[in-house]
């Protein structure tokens, strides 16, 4: 029985009038945890009751503490009839369970009712006393920290990144149980909210257990999702990356002692070049390659299908030079089908002696069933035959791969949900890998053994893993999973970026990390990650390779697509921009298998077209790489929608993208020709305009540099070397470069015409605005502290008549463009500003309804500095970033099976020492415990002493907490204004330093109304609900003592309406990390003292404007 939960109900305010006669309320409160309930006295006849209750104490085991939410119900006492519920507050007490987070939850919480919304507020104080539990078989995982942030949290250092953790739990959805027919909507909603709260608690606990098993102490990039499968149940699933984190001490920058073993690596014998930068070893990487797989389920038994390997499609795009095209399909050599893209692009490889496997056909796509089909975007295969670079890198590459692979292969899935990494961590990036599978939902018979769902995901992950392997990568980063459900059909999707990770961080017992140093040197800063990871001679798909424009040593692809954020060290020219591909496809209404089949049949085409669109739009902006790519395919009754968002940038390492050339089909028609040339001109103008807009002015064209005997001094030696060694290719490359304009759009029918038109309809944001869907906008680094996070939702009805793919596409496109336009308009007062982390979600709630939800943050920046775009600040910020990261970076990836070897005791010690050197502050208070291990030691000591007290750290912390509490609650009883809580989908706040992570916020709300018109129609209803959700998130953060939520995300927004019945219902699921931040300007004035920091939210609350 290792925990005591204490709850005190202080007061209420602004309660609704429950007694019409007196215009007052006789309120009391029920406090429930698990199966225990306490009640306060009735506070008669007041809308602002002061209960000031005693401490209600719940003695519970920690498993329960993790699973159960604290449930507070405010009721109106009624002598003659049943008491009326006013509303509830659910408090997740998880943040109180780990040592470094909050010590007390105290503050005003909105009282929420699923029918009436927020009805007044209640002031509650919650504390937990944890006892020690050394039971090795325990089922709880208290102490494991969770972060939504997909990078190493700012005030921590990663000692070890262990890898992928996943779990799912299923249950019956209360909404679909028989009892729902007889209970009130309120009861049903509350049952659902409670169940989901319970399930996510359980899920988190189970994931925590896995982390403990891996000897980690935290989960980073934690993403939890709900699948509302309707009749067949409710699935809550989560993925994340297990890590061992160390809290960074403010004062001492201690060295990462943990990877000392790897430091002493010897040089590799075959590394003959002393110049570190010349090493071009390391898997070289292809650029943009995507591997997709579609797995329509074939067996439509009730038990869900197994994977569908037999449908394979191979649409590939080969955006590349004009001429005959060459396709390589390494994985499915027999496949000769033409994919739709064929008609558009043709490529040719000059100088290469390869024979085309087949030439381009314009024939319609043929879908074939064949063996597992991996679709990739084919790259033009220029330079493929040469392979001389491979010569040098070959053996080394193999070695490297063996080493890292052997290490990573011990993991079932070498996946990382992180999107931002320490510099140097990513050696090479292979490209996007994704897999989708269409499944028929069936009832989950035994919720305790959710095998089918597990199996589904395992299948998909397996597929992802094999795709990554095909790209010569041993790991997948920026990994995420999602579903789209319509009736009984479900599309499961997973995607990530195949990558090769730096073996410096891979501690492999057998290899002794011998390659470490070499690799470190091998990847030149800023371009290494672009180099292809696979063997040129043995490419997984045809690609158009050139020498890296930065280091000139390694091969790079012409385009790179990834799901991760832009690496800090990447060298980018100009600014980035949000690029979206939008697509609709009609499908027949059908049942079960037929439906699943038609969806599976459509998917490949959609993927293909989405990619073509992305590619075209990328070229149109004169850019050559996409980051943060997220492709969402949504299934509805009679259509599929695809929406891909990414941030386009110009990477200095990749070749300048060629333009887009339009070719007409009927060359002899004069007017037609004219039309074509007109279009061509428009396109060229657009490209030129975009280059100017995004400040893309790459140095000089590569041919000249390559041909020139005097390269820039910095690169001279390297270049010379590369010239001498591979002069052959250089000439070859030149040839292909000469053709680099060869991206051709062939206009052969109205469809194609539409496509071209739609290309040109994307309006650039108004001046002063930039947008991206990544964390940071390349080219802007002088952010000012003003931020505005927002959610916008639109539901549009498609006119019923004449629905064709074209009109649908146009409608959808307009919908998105208009939404963006209205965002720019609304935020016009913030100019100059950038919309960051723009996240679109598409849903098809009903037949003709399309729902789009956008969450993003607008951040202002200083225009003057931005205009200059001078190098100095950039470099400085990069430096800062890298020193920042320095501490975080020095971690080994824990791959070895012997845990002891990698146990980071030394760093933990240092932290402690550092802590105790702090004057006047007990170490325990500062970090409570600096690492999991230390915590365990501490606990062990306590136990040995035979005390049953709570840990020392808790005791010490409490006076502070009390003081803090008093400090805060005093003003809140008076007329004080509410403290400001900032929210942002980013992992940081501009101009501020995050000093403490207080725990994860993960909330699920249902709102329902039976008086839709009276509440202002659907817009009024949803507007109020989203405002309420924000308010409840802010209240919880403020109660934890925080002043911001970072990595905020609205994971679900399910809206259903029935205007005829005047009803609507909406479910929203949000999450984020509650933090305390301090303005950098304030920080300088403050002594580095945690106590000041703790009181920060109160003092800064008033004057900070969001």
């Amino acid at each position, binding site marked *: 029985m290792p925990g005591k939960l204490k709850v005190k109900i202080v007061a209420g305010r602004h309660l609704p009038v429950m007694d019409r006669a007196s215009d007052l309320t006789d309120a009391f409160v029920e406090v429930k945890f698990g199966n225990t309930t306490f009640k306060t006295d009735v506070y008669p006849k007041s809308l602002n009751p002061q209960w000031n209750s005693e401490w209600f104490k719940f003695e519970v085991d920690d498993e329960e503490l993790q699973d159960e939410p604290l449930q507070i119900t405010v009721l109106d006492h009624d002598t003659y009839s049943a008491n009326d519920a006013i509303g509830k507050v659910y408090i997740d007490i998880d943040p109180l369970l780990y040592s470094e987070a909050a010590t007390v939850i105290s503050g005003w919480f909105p009282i929420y009712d699923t029918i009436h919304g927020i009805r007044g507020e209640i002031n509650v104080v919650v504390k937990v006393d944890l006892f020690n539990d050394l039971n090795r078989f325990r089922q709880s995982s208290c102490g494991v920290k969770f972060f939504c942030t997909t990078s190493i949290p700012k005030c921590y250092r990663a000692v070890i990144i262990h890898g992928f953790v996943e779990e799912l739990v299923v249950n019956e959805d209360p909404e679909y149980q028989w009892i729902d027919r007889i209970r009130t909507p309120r009861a049903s909603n509350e049952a659902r909210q409670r169940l989901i709260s319970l399930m996510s608690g359980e899920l988190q606990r189970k994931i925590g257990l896995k982390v403990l098993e891996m000897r980690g102490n935290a989960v980073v990039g934690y993403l939890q999702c709900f699948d509302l499968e309707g009749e067949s149940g409710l699935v809550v699933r989560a993925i994340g990356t297990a890590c061992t984190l160390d809290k960074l001490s403010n004062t001492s920058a201690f060295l990462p002692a943990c990877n000392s073993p790897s430091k002493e690596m010897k040089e590799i014998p075959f590394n003959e070049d002393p110049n570190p930068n010349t090493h071009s070893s390391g898997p070289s990487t292809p650029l943009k390659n995507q591997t997709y797989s579609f797995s329509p389920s074939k067996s439509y038994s009730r038990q869900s299908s197994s994977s569908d390997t037999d449908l394979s499609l191979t649409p590939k795009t080969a955006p590349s030079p004009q001429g005959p095209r060459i396709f390589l399909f390494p994985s499915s050599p027999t496949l000769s089908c033409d994919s739709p893209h064929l008609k558009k692009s043709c490529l040719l490889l000059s100088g290469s002696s390869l024979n085309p496997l087949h030439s381009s056909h314009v024939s319609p796509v043929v879908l074939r069933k064949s063996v597992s089909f991996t679709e990739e975007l084919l790259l033009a295969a220029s330079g493929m035959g040469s392979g001389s670079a491979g010569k040098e890198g070959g053996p080394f590459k193999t070695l490297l791969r063996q080493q890292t692979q052997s290490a990573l292969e011990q993991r079932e899935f070498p996946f990382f949900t992180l999107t931002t990494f320490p510099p140097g961590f990513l050696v090479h990036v292979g490209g996007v890998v994704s897999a989708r599978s269409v499944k028929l939902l069936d009832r989950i018979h035994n919720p305790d053994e959710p095998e089918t769902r597990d199996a589904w995901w395992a299948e998909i992950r397996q597929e992802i893993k094999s795709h990554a392997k095909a790209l010569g990568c041993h790991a997948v980063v920026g990994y995420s999973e999602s579903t789209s459900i319509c009736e009984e059909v479900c599309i499961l999707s997973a995607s990530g970026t195949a990558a090769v990770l730096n073996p410096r961080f891979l501690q492999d017992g057998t290899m002794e990390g011998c390659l470490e140093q070499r690799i470190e040197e091998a990847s030149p800063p800023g371009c290494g990650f672009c180099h292809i990871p696979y063997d040129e001679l043995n490419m997984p798909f045809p690609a158009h390779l050139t020498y890296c424009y930065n280091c000139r040593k390694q091969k790079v692809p012409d385009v790179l697509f990834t799901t991760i954020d832009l690496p800090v060290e990447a060298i980018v020219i100009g600014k980035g921009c949000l690029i979206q591909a939008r697509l609709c496809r009609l499908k027949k209404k059908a049942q079960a298998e037929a439906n699943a089949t038609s969806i599976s049949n459509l998917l490949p085409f959609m993927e293909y077209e989405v990619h073509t669109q992305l590619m075209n739009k990328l070229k149109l902006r004169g850019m050559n790489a996409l980051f943060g790519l997220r492709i969402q395919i949504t299934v509805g009754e009679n259509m599929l929608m695809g929406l891909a968002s990414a941030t386009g940038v110009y990477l200095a390492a990749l070749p300048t993208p060629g333009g887009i050339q339009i070719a007409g089909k009927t060359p002899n028609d004069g007017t037609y020709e004219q039309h074509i040339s007109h279009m061509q001109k428009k396109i060229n103008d657009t490209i030129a305009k975009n280059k100017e807009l995004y400040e893309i002015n790459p140095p000089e064209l590569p041919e000249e540099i390559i041909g020139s005997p005097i390269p820039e001094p910095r690169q001279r030696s390297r270049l010379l070397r590369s010239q001498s060694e591979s002069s052959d290719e250089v000439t070859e490359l030149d040839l292909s470069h000469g053709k680099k304009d060869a991206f051709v759009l062939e206009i052969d029918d109205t469809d194609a015409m539409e496509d071209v038109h739609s290309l040109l309809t994307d309006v650039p944001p108004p001046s002063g605005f930039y947008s991206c869907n990544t964390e940071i906008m390349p080219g802007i680094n002088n952010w000012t502290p003003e931020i505005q996070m927002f959610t916008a939702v639109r*539901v549009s009805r498609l006119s019923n008549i004449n629905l064709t793919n074209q009109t649908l596409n146009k409608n959808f496109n307009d919908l998105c463009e208009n939404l963006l336009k209205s965002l720019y308009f609304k935020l016009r007062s913030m100019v100059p500003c950038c919309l960051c982390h723009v996240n679109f979600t598409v849903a098809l709630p009903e037949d003709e309804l399309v729902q789009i939800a956008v969450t993003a943050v607008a951040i202002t920046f200083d225009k003057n500095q931005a205009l200059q775009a001078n190098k100095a600040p950039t470099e400085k910020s990069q430096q800062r970033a890298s020193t920042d990261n320095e501490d975080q970076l020095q971690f080994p990836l824990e791959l070895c099976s012997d845990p002891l070897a990698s146990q980071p005791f030394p760093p933990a010690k240092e932290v402690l020492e550092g802590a105790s050197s702090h004057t006047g502050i007990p170490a325990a208070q500062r970090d409570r415990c600096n690492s999991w291990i230390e915590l365990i030691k501490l606990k062990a000591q306590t136990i040995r002493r035979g005390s049953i007290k709570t840990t020392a750290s808790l005791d010490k912390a409490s006076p502070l907490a009390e003081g803090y509490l008093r400090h805060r609650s005093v003003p809140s009883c008076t*007329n004080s204004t509410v403290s400001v809580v900032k929210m942002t989908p980013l992992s940081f706040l501009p101009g501020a330093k995050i000093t403490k992570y207080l725990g994860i916020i993960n909330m699920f709300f249902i709102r329902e109304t039976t008086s839709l018109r009276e509440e202002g129609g659907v817009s009024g209803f949803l507007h109020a609900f989203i405002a309420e959700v924000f308010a409840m998130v802010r209240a919880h953060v403020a109660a934890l003592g925080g002043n911001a939520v970072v990595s905020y995300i609205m994971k679900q927004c399910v809206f259903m309406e029935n205007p005829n019945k005047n009803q609507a219902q909406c479910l929203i699921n949000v999450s984020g990390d509650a933090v305390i931040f301090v303005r950098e300007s304030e920080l300088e004035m403050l002594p580095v003292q945690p106590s000041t920091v703790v009181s920060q939210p109160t003092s800064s609350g008033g004057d900070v404007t969001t």
Partner: protein
Amino acid sequence: MTSDLDIFVGNTTLIDEEVYQLWLDGHSVAEAVARRLRGGVLERAGTSVAVLQSDTRDHYRTFQMLERLLHAPPRLLQQLLFQIPPSRQAMLVQRYYAFEESFARELLGKKLSKGTKKDLDEISARTGVSIKSCRRQFDNFKRVFKAVEELRGPLADNIQQLFLLPPPLARDYAAVVFFANSRFETGKRRLQFLTFGDFAACAQHMMLHWTQGALAPEAAEPDGDVPKSFLQDLKELKVLVADKDLLDLHKSLVCTALRGKISVYNEMEANFKPLSRALVNVGGKLTHARDVRDFFVDLVEKVIEPCRSDKWSPADLRLFLGHYTAAPRALPAFRHQALWERYMAVITACLLRMYHD
């Protein structure tokens, strides 16, 4: 493709002051969009009418949700639903409670009842203030009236505290409440030349010098009422005009003091008795509710109009009233000096304020 649902919610509530004013002025969404179009926002931001409509609707929805809170401004500060910086909160409250003086002038002295509310369309037509705006302003008056009706202490302070209004606005509200409570007649034709500002100033003087709150903030009577005992005492002042000796003495004192100092000396001397009678009797009548209503009518009819027809300048009036108030000090038989001065302070101030065209 029509948008059924279209919303934007910011963590910090976005408030467009221009749209807020349009909303306060009672324009419908369509009218507001038209006005914004004319205002040229489109040219500046380069966007479409649809965007403007959606933006306007969003703001209107926000304001409708905020309105409930604006009814009790302290709640706006405490509420958790909308995160609004304090300066913007103050702006919201101030603008919501701001009123048209022309509208308030019409309403002064009327009972803030349902009946009056029904007649608002007339006032709206007369003043050119839109009916929606009239209703909001009327409801504001009524809400403030109800909230402070029973409270003790200075009216303006109470209003400022309960509605977080800036002090000048709170004082104007106090005047409105005072008039609604005392029901002074203000609508007569001969009072038409008086503005809201005139009346508000008079009300403030009355509250300052006459009401209980001004003397003892803790006193039992609400601030809106002039205490009965004081009004009763005012009858004692009649001795100044009823007693012929006193009246003559008073006149000679004033005349001596003013001789050669004012331009209308002869008119003053000739009219002294009727003037003095009027000035004293206004106070004496205040005990009867019906006569209270005529307070301003009497002042205008019996003091201001005669003076005006004799072409007194405001300086003349000031000088006269000053000496007229001070003279009884020299009257040994007159024992209500303090009462007299408290009474005359208000009358003097009111007259001086009202003495214009």
